[in-house]
């Protein structure tokens, strides 16, 4: 379904080209129909991995495929829904127009899209505000609009980068329900978070990334031994990674 095959990426920062190793030989497999929680501290490489899947960043080595096609092929993204971290949209568009763009650009037929837009807006709670320009939206509303945009074309694979950030408890519940709903529909969900509680509640499998490497991955039940919490596992994994960097 989603295959990440030993990707590495080095960024050059600043004018002097100081090298930062963002991803090191990272491999990952996500199976059809599962909810995969991607976990890691800030700056660990979560967003970079996700951007590789969206072809926003090209890995120096290795490759990634989704649904059997290389992510560099634009057509793949017809079946992918993506919510960026801290999404920004055009200021002077309404939510309705934003979704119209998302649907049309992903090849959704006009009549179908016309029915789908109000549905999805209602689902994320933006039906009332659908005609307002996005610049008047609060951060939470923008996040909801981003979710709607990620789902408007009924994608098979949904990739959500920090979907809960900026949302109030009701919003978090809405996102959680959405993820479970997607799972019921047989969609594949890949979402990142640094909030362990969210990961624990919704994921079938998890992966922990730190310092650009995948440190741990597997079924939630297998990764977390009985008597321990995900937090214990997470902290232990991160601590081990830190030791390695120091060495």
């Amino acid at each position, binding site marked *: 379904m989603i295959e990440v095959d030993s990707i590495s990426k080095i960024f050059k920062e600043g004018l002097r080209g100081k090298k930062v190793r963002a991803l090191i030989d990272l491999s990952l497999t996500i199976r059809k129909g599962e909810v995969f929680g991607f976990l890691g501290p800030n700056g660990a490489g979560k967003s970079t991995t996700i951007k590789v899947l969206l072809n926003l960043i090209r890995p120096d080595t290795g490759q990634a495929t989704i649904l059997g096609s290389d992510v560099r092929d634009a057509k793949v993204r017809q079946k992918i829904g993506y919510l960026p971290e801290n999404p920004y949209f055009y200021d002077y568009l309404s939510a309705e127009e934003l979704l119209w763009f998302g649907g049309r*650009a992903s090849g959704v037929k006009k009549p179908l899209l016309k029915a789908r837009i109000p549905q999805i807006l209602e689902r994320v709670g933006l039906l009332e505000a659908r005609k307002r320009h996005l610049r008047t939206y609060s951060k939470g509303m923008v996040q909801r609009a981003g979710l709607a945009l990620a789902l408007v074309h009924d994608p098979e694979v949904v990739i959500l980068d920090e979907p809960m950030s900026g949302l109030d408890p009701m919003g978090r519940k809405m996102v959680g329900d959405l993820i479970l709903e997607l799972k019921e529909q047989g969609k594949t969900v890949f979402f990142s978070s640094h909030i362990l509680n969210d990961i624990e509640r919704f994921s079938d499998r998890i992966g922990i990334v730190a310092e650009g490497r995948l440190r741990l991955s597997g079924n939630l039940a297998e990764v977390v031994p009985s008597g321990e919490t995900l937090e214990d596992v997470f902290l232990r994994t991160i601590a081990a990674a830190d030791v390695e960097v120091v060495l």
Partner: protein
Amino acid sequence: MKAIWPLAVITFKEGIRNRAIYGIFLLALLLFAANFLICGMIMQEVGKVAVDIALSAVSFSGLLLVLFVGINLLAKDLDRRTIYMVLARPISRGQYIWGKFVGMTLLIFTAVASLGGCALLSIGSVRFAFPNYFPRFAWEPVLWALALIALMLVLLAALSFLFASFTTSSFVTLVLTVVSYFIGHGVSAIKALVEAPEAVGIEVSAATVRLVKAAYYMFPNLSLFDIKIQAAHNLEIPWTYLAGTIAYGLVYTIMIVFLAGLIFSRREFP
């Protein structure tokens, strides 16, 4: 094409709703109003001055539109990462550039059409006020001048896309576009100057001549698109000139956007 059109539509909407547009239109309307004041001071060729002012107002406002609205349409996409929502769709980077460009072209055509309408209205009302001072006047060359202004602005927008495709800051894009605008309008005059320096009594080194010649072929010759004087005096403009200029504009624009797409497709968006 299926992916390009929706992008062009939202680009156009985003551009046309930008607040800066109101300012630009207000400025243009002031200039059109000033047309009356200035024309009142002209003794003989009021028609010429009316056309001058109206066309210059359209050209200048269009320039502001490209520089301050157009550049932002692309640059803000990169600055604020709104590009993610576009590239998350089945749209390649090349298609992205073309979609944005088509949207921008729609915006320019709409703006020039409405500004041009106001310009014609302003010329028409001056003519109504001073009917005897329009000794040589025809609408047709004015319309052609407007069309070439639109084409020039589209070409300039294409250039700004090229610059945006390899710079990381919208300010650099703005500066490069402004510089190309000035070079584009002056380069043919400068080329004529260095090729016959004895006419003005200056000495030019061979290296300068080569440099100017290189600039002449690299930068667009924007002065080709300026037929305001001809329109103002209703001088004859051969159709071969118009056809040639339009063809030149199209070829250069397509070449530049294509190049921008090529450069852009190598870019990453961390």
